[in-house]
């Protein structure tokens, strides 16, 4: 397991993108998101949601975290999937590699059974991609330190912060 910062590279991003696209089509979902367990959005595809995706990601991660604690209290290691079923819109959430959360937003055009089935297949594929990514990051962390952004990055960021956050 990779600790600390992690990075997503071009090839991994597109591999993930492809899996999510296929999942969305085969499950007839409205949109599919992949979220880091700390609440940061990794990728979102499908209909542009009519809500704030950043806030949504943060709440989805909190939802999962709270449920993981509930699972532990009742003697489960975790609840790997969560379903929130509404009258029109529903959500299916599944944790993958103990690191990211797959979120599927779907409506009455499809069924929970189909979504669950397709999610399971996509999760296996995503797991492979993520495992490869984590191995790569592990190697980089050990051999050449974490991915860096260059020496000028911090200096430029400082200027930006100073100009933005003023009383």
């Amino acid at each position, binding site marked *: 397991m990779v*600790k*600390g*910062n*992690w*990075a*997503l*590279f*071009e090839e*991994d*991003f*597109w591999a993930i993108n492809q899996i999510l696209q296929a999942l969305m089509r085969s499950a007839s979902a409205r949109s599919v998101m992949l979220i*880091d*367990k*700390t*609440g*940061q*959005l*990794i*990728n979102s595809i499908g209909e542009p949601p009519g809500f*704030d995706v*950043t*806030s949504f990601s*943060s*709440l989805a991660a*909190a939802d999962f*975290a*709270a449920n993981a*604690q509930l699972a532990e209290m009742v003697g489960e290691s975790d609840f790997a999937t969560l379903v929130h079923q509404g009258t029109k819109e529903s959500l299916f959430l599944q944790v993958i590699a103990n690191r990211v959360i797959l979120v599927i937003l779907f409506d009455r055009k499809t069924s929970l059974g189909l979504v669950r089935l397709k999610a399971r297949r996509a999760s296996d594929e995503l797991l492979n991609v993520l495992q490869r990514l984590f191995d790569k990051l592990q190697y980089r962390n050990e051999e050449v330190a974490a*991915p*860096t*952004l*260059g*020496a*000028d*990055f*911090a200096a*430029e*960021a*400082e200027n*930006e*912060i*100073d100009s*933005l*956050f*003023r*009383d």
Partner: protein
Amino acid sequence: MSLINYSSREINCKIVYYGPGLCGKTTNLQHIYSRVPQETRGKMISLATEMDRTLFFDFLPLELGQIRGFRTRFHLYTVPGQVYYNASRKLILKGTDGIVFVADSQIDRYEANIESLMNMHDNLAEHGLSVDKIPIIMQYNKRDLPRVVAVSELEKELNPNGNPYFESVAFRGTGVFDTLKLSCKLVLKQLG
């Protein structure tokens, strides 16, 4: 933990405001929300009780814009300060890149600060994080009130590691942006 997406060229970092109940963590975020340009901030989310006490967390996303071609975002969180919400505090702390510890300067909250700080150390340790590795900024809040502990005393008791500190009056905004700016800078420095 920060997430760098080289494909969509985005960087996301997480900063958590920690501290005892009613010390001013939410007030910090509310002030930031009210003062930053609309295009910089996202929606502020508060999961609070009917009495406006934080139940789970407050969340405020801030967008710095493009830095060296990377769209850089900070996600600010507060934890619920009340002692019995520790399970929630632990969850929010997970994966944080920086911490702002907001201490209540009032004499009768002295012990509560110490207790909260010890609790933070315990929770960090449970996530395998060390206070030496994460940038921590101390903020001594409510400096305008009459019965407050001297800053030198707070420094001695709460900040033996010599982390940077600011004095603040969060509801007026004094010290709020100084704290935020330094925290953001230290977090990004770690990425550089």
